[in-house]
């Protein structure tokens, strides 16, 4: 089929946008028009977010946070909003305040629970192991058709996951702390990357 935009070239980028309410909008563009309109790229996602969900608490690209630059890779926040991509791990610290509402929109959450790398001994890793154990036990109960106990265990699991989320949030003190905590792995080593 032909590109909906130029009507000359073949459409090779096909996107279905599901907008609020479950409605769908189909977009069929050729590669050139897709790139020009930033469809099918992270930029497309970012413009959807900034366009569709204007939020008073969210920093505007033209105000303060927009000019904030990463101390490590020098990416400017406003450019991140344009491209939809961060430049390095330190960006997550430097832009934390601005990122939080954005992550809330994308994921409905702003802190990580779940797996952590092997060398990382943390709340996240312990929670993950416990969750895995409980899920296995839950599956066994379901297989044995022991639904009463399974329901109790499922509630415990939900409680654990909620607690992990709260603990993760609580452990984030102030933006300063988050930036300098030893939890962020090797983000100060980026000096050598600039060589």
């Amino acid at each position, binding site marked *: 089929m032909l590109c909906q935009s130029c009507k000359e070239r073949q459409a090779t980028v096909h996107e279905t946008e599901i907008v609020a309410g479950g409605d769908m909008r189909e977009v069929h563009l050729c590669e050139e028009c897709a790139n020009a309109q930033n469809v099918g790229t992270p930029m497309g996602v970012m413009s959807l977010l900034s366009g569709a969900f204007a939020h008073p608490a969210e920093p505007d690209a033209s105000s303060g946070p927009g000019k904030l630059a990463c101390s490590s890779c020098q990416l400017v926040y406003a450019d991140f909003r344009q491209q939809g991509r961060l430049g*390095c791990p330190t960006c*997550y610290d430097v832009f*934390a305040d601005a990122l939080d509402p954005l992550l809330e929109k994308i994921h409905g959450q702003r802190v*990580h629970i779940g797996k952590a790398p092997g060398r990382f001994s943390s709340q996240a890793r312990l929670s993950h192991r416990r969750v*895995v154990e409980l899920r296995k036990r839950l599956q066994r109960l379901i297989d044995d058709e022991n639904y009463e106990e399974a329901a109790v265990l499922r509630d415990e699991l939900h409680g654990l996951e909620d607690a992990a989320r709260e603990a993760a949030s609580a452990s984030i003190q102030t933006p300063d702390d988050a930036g300098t905590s030893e939890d962020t792995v090797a*983000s100060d080593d980026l000096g050598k990357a600039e060589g």
Partner: protein
Amino acid sequence: MDTVTDYGGDHAAGGEWLSGTGPEAEIVISSRVRLARNLAGHRFLSRAEPTEREDIEREVRTALEGVNFPDEMVYLDLNKARQLDADLLVERHLISRELARGEGPRAVCYSSNEAVSIMVCEEDHLRVQVLRSGLQLDAAWQFADQIDDAIGERLEYAFSSRYGYLTCCPTNVGTGIRASVMLHLPALVYTKHIDRVFAAGAKMDLAVRGLYGEGTQATGDFYQISNQKALGRSEDELLSTLNDLVPQFVAYERKVRDALLKGDRAALEDKVWRGLALLRAARTVSSDEALELLSAVRLGRNLELLPPELTTELLNELFMTAQPAHLQRFSTGEQEPKERDIHRANLMRKKLGEAH
């Protein structure tokens, strides 16, 4: 582990994940779990200079060489490979189109049975992918988890306790996981009930896309369902949403198939037999048409309306070998679309028992 510059596989039929042997494999073709990871101490690829990209690729390759994988692995340098081989890997679901069409140091490390593939320097430094036949998300995640641990022993990942695994694009941050299943839903498409799948998916924060990312009326009646969120839920939680919803979609498709059989068997038989007849007789068949007709034949076979020699294995093989890069790599050599359409038709007639 060998480093190579071309696709050396000699079996045209797809990897093990296309064997049709997993649970519910008639409708759930495959399950996939992908993990996105970046190295600590390096910029993300969106900002890295060429020399840093080379360093990253080298570090990752060295680490992968040291991992004791259970299967034989191959490291394919995509910067040196032919475009045709890269496109072939896209068709085999081993790499993304972005990686195939990208530039600069990049590679894919995959197992000989093609169940595991690790993209190097795509959007993130590493993307580990595990594929399984049928509905096997848990098994795919367990394996991906192990591989991730093994690689993590040799590399320091960029990770923060607040945000989890740090990724180039914030849509992936946290678990870095994208779990998806590929479903074949011809009855739901035929009866125009497919929009309910989209609606149910949207309500549960799942993305529903066609085979090539398109919307309703997807090519070949295939749909990919995947999680859209990656942060703030454990990997198990994210998987359980899919594990809860997918069986419901499968049941729905089965219910509609039964209703069609009871309600209008003649029309259904006609549809699937016409599909087979065309493939057995046509002289040119486009990619899209092949997928459309194979979808009808697959449905016909699932419902036992078509002869048993049309096995799932055969249909899956044709699904793979009818694709453009496959045709050129395994039968015809580089060709223009019109010539490929003729060869595709030849392939179909040969494999499906030519009409006389």
